[in-house]
């Protein structure tokens, strides 16, 4: 009789008891808490970060790009973020790219955005047909970041000349002899401005007194010509990549430069 009751009873995880306990007896949270607990909505975070991307700087030719580690600055649970992103990629809504300047830096673009921008750019060019074919056959089904020659020729039935056209149009970037990264056309400018801006913002934090600055202060500061993106975009980047430490204080969030 007892056994049956035991099996029907909903078993709570041991850690759940301690999580609630921690919140009750734990230290008070200073400053504003930027993210809420509970099932996080990665999609809405992505959309928020996409709004920080400056389209005017690139004359609207690039789709909105967000970096994967920027999400880590908003949500605490990195493993959960990774899992949700993989789910979105499997569903075909999100595309991930290896940006090239850092082994860990992955760029995220909504699939619809990407397709629209690429096709708009290809309008009237002779490579348009191939690119369209590539988008329909490969990008729609495959969640890979790179492709080898073998795969392109056999699985997707592209010819050599078609592959050359794809590289010319910027959809594929050479990785090494016989394999290519999936890439965003004209993203060279993005990478250049991004790295410049990141260095400039990091220097701002580093040169401050004690190597730390309040996040609210940093957002208010006048940016030099080097910083082409929105300050918040860069702040999410450096916090998520753990290049600065984010500390809760009574006057808000403090960013401290991490000497490594």
């Amino acid at each position, binding site marked *: 009789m007892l056994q049956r009751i035991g099996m029907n009873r909903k078993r709570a995880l*041991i850690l759940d*008891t301690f999580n609630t306990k921690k919140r009750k007896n734990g230290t008070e949270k200073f400053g504003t808490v930027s993210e809420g607990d509970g099932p996080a909505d990665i999609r809405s975070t992505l959309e928020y970060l996409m709004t920080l991307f400056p389209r005017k700087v690139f004359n609207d030719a690039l789709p909105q790009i967000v970096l994967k580690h920027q999400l880590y600055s908003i949500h605490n649970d990195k493993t959960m*973020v990774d899992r949700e992103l993989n789910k979105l990629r499997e569903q075909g809504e999100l595309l991930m790219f290896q940006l090239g300047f850092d082994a860990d830096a992955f760029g995220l673009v909504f699939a619809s955005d990407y397709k629209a921008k690429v096709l708009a750019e290809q309008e009237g060019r002779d490579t348009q047909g191939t690119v369209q074919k590539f988008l329909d056959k490969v990008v729609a089904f495959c969640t890979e970041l790179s492709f080898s020659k073998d795969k392109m020729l056999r699985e997707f039935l592209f010819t050599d000349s078609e592959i050359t056209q794809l590289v010319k149009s910027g959809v594929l970037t050479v990785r090494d002899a016989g394999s290519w990264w999936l890439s965003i056309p004209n993203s060279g400018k993005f990478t250049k401005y991004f790295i410049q801006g990141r260095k400039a913002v990091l220097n701002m934090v580093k040169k401050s007194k004690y190597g730390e600055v309040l996040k609210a202060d940093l957002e208010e500061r006048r940016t030099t010509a080097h910083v082409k993106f929105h300050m918040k975009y860069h702040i999410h980047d450096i916090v998520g990549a753990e290049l600065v430490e984010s500390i809760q204080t009574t006057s808000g969030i403090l960013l401290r430069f991490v000497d490594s």
Partner: protein
Amino acid sequence: MLGFLTARQAGLDDPLRLRRAESTRRVLSLKLNPDRDVDRIHGNGINTIDIDVIEGRYMLSGGADGVIVIYDLENYSGKPEYTCKAICTVGRSNRHVHKFSVETVQWYPYDTGMFVSSSFDKTMKVWDTDTLKPAEVFEFEGNVYSHHLSPIARKHSLIAVGTKNPKIQLCDMKSGSCIQVLQGHRAEVLSVRWSPRYEYILASASADSKVRLWDVRRAAGSLFTLDQHNGDKSKASSEAVNTAHNGRVNGLCFTGDGLYLLTTGTDDRMRLWNSATGENTLVNYGKVCNESRKRLQFTVSRGCSPEFVFVPCGSSVAVYGLHTGELVTMLRGHYNNVDCCEFHPDYQELYTGGKDCNILAWVPVLRPSDVEEESDGANKGAAGQTSVNPAFQDAWSSDED
């Protein structure tokens, strides 16, 4: 917690569940305790500590000056303030002391009559604890970074040794010589660990960014190499074939049940692997600062649910949830880099040693006594200054005897 106690009383829950819940609660409340201290003997940094498996009473520590100290961790004084005394030392005056820094020490897994230490003076010594003289000395060609005896071995008595040489040596204590060599790494082997689940499985980490798993009964090479991308060729740069980390791999630790393996590397990452298949579980711990050029000794809790990983990060120890990857807390207390840490499973205590020559004991915070008991204590304890937990008070012996 009361819910767990009632369920245990009524028989609705397995007794193990209450034990795990209490262990987890204790680990979550680890703090530096002003009452608990460890004798300060080392004059230089402490590189390694080990607590014996059988009783959990004696702790070995090896220092950068070649000194080895044995401490008694048990508190029989009846008072809450306690200093773990050093029972004996292999000091600089001992004829057989290591010439350079001791990198790894380990108790013999079956009793505390013997322990093994290895050092940068290219030797590994098997010591007799009573006489503090080495019963056996193994010599190698390069600095010895790490050695390990299997905690569960019944059929063999091999010590796996990782040195500057890319070959892993297996030394047999029964015969007193190196009987086997495992080839496969291309650079120095920084850490070796036996699996706590299968006595013939060995994991090794090397400066060539690879982690290999071996079955020592097999004549041909390793079983497999751990691949951080899980065979997903798209994520890797094409030259980096099958690496566990993007830098030197300097820390290895199996979980208590041997099902998972944790590795840390100088690319500031820590990864959790399924030890049977070699698959990267892709748990993201974030940036785990790691600048160590030698082995990093980190440890996993045992008997809690969920398990926690304690990793030395600079001058503090980071505590992560094993499967979630979230940073639970940072234990700050050392004045300089922390080199090693060891978890005491019976008392859920953490001992950490570092370059500041201190071994700190992190003890779970006791529950504060109730208001009622405190006022009673004030009335009774006119003579006694320290407030002893009523459970330890002697309530039955009479004054006449």
